[in-house]
């Protein structure tokens, strides 16, 4: 029990190293290790979620050092929830990559994939601000490799922008961490929260500046309004399986805002309480509209899906900015939906791209693709889900968020932004669907030979969430409500971390 929170970290790391060593034994061995590791991770994370629902936050002190001095990992319900979503998404993305032979396009796909999971899991589990930076770098470096996997000039160009903006983000992160350490003298998140609450007024300015700088960093990760332009290109140019996995990457930014800002600038922070909330609300509303315009203006399907990711992230941010347990529960419900459906759409776009030959996924008329009826129906299903039409999961998620927004002073703005952007998205998706599937040229010259739809299980798993989230809406919403309630009791988290006493070690003696 004691070592539980460490397992989701060490498993992908060891698997990644093992896969690297197994390179001489060929791809088949690497595939087996990689897939088995992801499945074990999924089982483990499900068990961790089940475990964390019954207990208070669990702490794991690396090297058995006491909390403010050593690095701690903290497993609470929110991090366990995010771990489960990551593992589910990763197993679907990896299955699709295996079936589509994405891993044959270049070297070390599986190594990068496992290290990516290591970084994401670490970011969800860590309780230390500088350690969060390190895990961000781990997941970013792996994501650079995955983004460029397969090569090609378009990937290179998108990758250059992605790497440059993330390096700027890392620099800002370090400036913010340095400023916080300079004033508060600690980097442990729980300890930071306690010290911010006791901060004299003369030093609040620097801490507020550092907090907002951190907000910019996380906004870059989550692709919020002024700093979202890297996302559409990067996500639309990379391979489908990687784009699907990246659906969780924006959520890492959201999680970081929830965790760091929720803890540091929560209710107990005195004059600094909620400094990020106004920014979060208005920027998310603006980026929701910009993303909806992007969806309308997109020239190709994958670009359109990338803008749909942006729109769903912005909706999620608005739910967080409402700042009530109800809204957060609705937001977490929406997070499940938006992650899985967006990932499923990226995988679906791969089939469409393959079926249309040279025209790929551009919105121009082309000969009908093979199995157009099947792919078209799946597309309609996914489009209904992501645009928020009843009866699928997007409708449930948006409805819950709007319901929670009713009491907010800016409810009118939230309502209009969400509803207008949803309308624009519905129009754009209807147009692109009819362009892709109805406006076809006579099939005198088949664009490509019919081929089996490889990786159908992954698409099925991801898109089934659209239905399952509606059928099991009550139990899932109960779960997210539980998580949100725990997150709005930060004293539980603080007490776990700060009152932790290291285990007695008879072999360790202090040097006199």
């Amino acid at each position, binding site marked *: 029990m004691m070592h539980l929170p460490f397992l989701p970290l060490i498993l992908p790391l060891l698997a990644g190293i093992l896969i690297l060593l197994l390179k001489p034994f060929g791809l088949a061995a690497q595939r087996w290790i990689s897939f088995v590791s992801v499945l074990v991770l999924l089982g483990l994370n499900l068990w961790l979620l089940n475990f964390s629902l019954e207990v208070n936050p669990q702490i794991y002190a690396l090297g058995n050092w006491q909390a403010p001095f050593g690095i701690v990992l903290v497993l609470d319900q929110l991090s366990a929830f995010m771990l489960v979503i990551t593992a589910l998404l990763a197993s679907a993305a990896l299955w699709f990559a295996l079936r589509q032979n994405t891993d044959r396009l270049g070297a070390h796909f599986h190594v990068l994939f496992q290290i990516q999971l290591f970084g994401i899991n670490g970011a969800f589990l860590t309780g230390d601000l500088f350690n969060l930076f390190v895990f961000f770098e781990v997941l970013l*470096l792996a994501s650079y490799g995955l983004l460029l996997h397969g090569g090609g000039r378009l990937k290179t160009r998108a990758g250059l922008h992605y790497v*440059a903006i993330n390096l700027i983000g890392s620099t800002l992160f370090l400036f913010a961490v340095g400023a916080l350490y300079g004033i508060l003298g600690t980097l442990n998140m729980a300890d930071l929260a306690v010290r911010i609450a006791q901060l004299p007024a003369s030093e609040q300015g620097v801490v507020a500046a550092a907090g907002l700088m951190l907000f910019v960093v996380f906004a870059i990760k989550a692709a919020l309004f002024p700093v979202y332009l890297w996302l559409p290109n990067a996500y639309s140019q990379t391979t489908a399986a990687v784009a699907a996995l990246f659906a969780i990457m924006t959520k890492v930014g959201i999680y970081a805002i929830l965790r760091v800002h929720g803890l540091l600038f929560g209710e107990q922070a005195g004059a600094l309480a909620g400094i990020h909330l106004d920014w979060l609300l208005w920027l998310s509303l603006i980026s929701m509209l910009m993303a909806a315009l992007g969806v309308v203006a997109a020239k190709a399907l994958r670009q359109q899906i990338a803008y749909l990711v942006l729109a769903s992230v912005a909706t999620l941010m608005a739910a967080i900015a409402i700042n009530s347990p109800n809204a957060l529960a609705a937001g977490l419900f929406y997070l499940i939906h938006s992650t899985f459906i967006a990932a499923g759409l990226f995988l679906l776009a791969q089939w469409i791209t393959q079926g249309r030959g040279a025209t790929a996924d551009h919105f121009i008329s082309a000969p009908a693709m093979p199995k157009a009826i099947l792919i078209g129906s799946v597309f309609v299903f996914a489009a209904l889900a992501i645009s928020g039409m009843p009866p699928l999961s997007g409708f449930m998620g948006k409805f819950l968020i709007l319901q929670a927004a009713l009491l907010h002073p800016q409810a009118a703005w939230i309502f209009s932004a969400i509803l207008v952007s949803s309308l624009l998205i519905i129009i754009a998706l209807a147009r692109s669907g009819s362009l892709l599937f109805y406006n076809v040229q006579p099939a005198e010259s088949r664009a490509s030979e019919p081929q089996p739809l490889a990786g159908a299980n992954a698409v099925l798993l991801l898109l089934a969430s659209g239905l399952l989230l509606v059928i099991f809406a009550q139990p899932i919403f109960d779960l997210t409500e539980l998580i949100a309630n725990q997150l709005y009791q930060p004293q539980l988290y603080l007490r776990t971390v700060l009152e932790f006493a290291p285990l007695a070690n008879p072999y360790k003696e202090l040097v006199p």
Partner: protein
Amino acid sequence: MEILFALSIAVMTAAGVFLTLRARTFPVVLGLSLLAYAVNLFLFAMGRLQVGLPSVINPVQGGYSDPLPQALVLTAIVIAFGMTAFLIVLALKAKAELGNDHVDGLHQAQDEMADPNPSPRASSKAKREIQS
């Protein structure tokens, strides 16, 4: 010493921001490296500037300098080093594949044009840009 230190952080940050906003990849790489240097100095200063004090507590000497920022700087240097190496390789790859070192790649590739039959005017413009 404080003024000198603050000035060097400020100059490096300003130069880094300026270079990062340039349109070619090489100045961008240089700018990001300068930003990394600036942030390393900044982190170092956050443990307060002290001269001639040990970082491990020594009963003979009156005080000690904060060892934590030094550990942070070490980590940050290693990460920035790796990232810069990666970025340089990526910039070289982009130069080779896109045919120029502009951060946006300037001319469009054949496979990114929505129109499969590009107008002759656009392609001649692209050619001229390659030649110049």
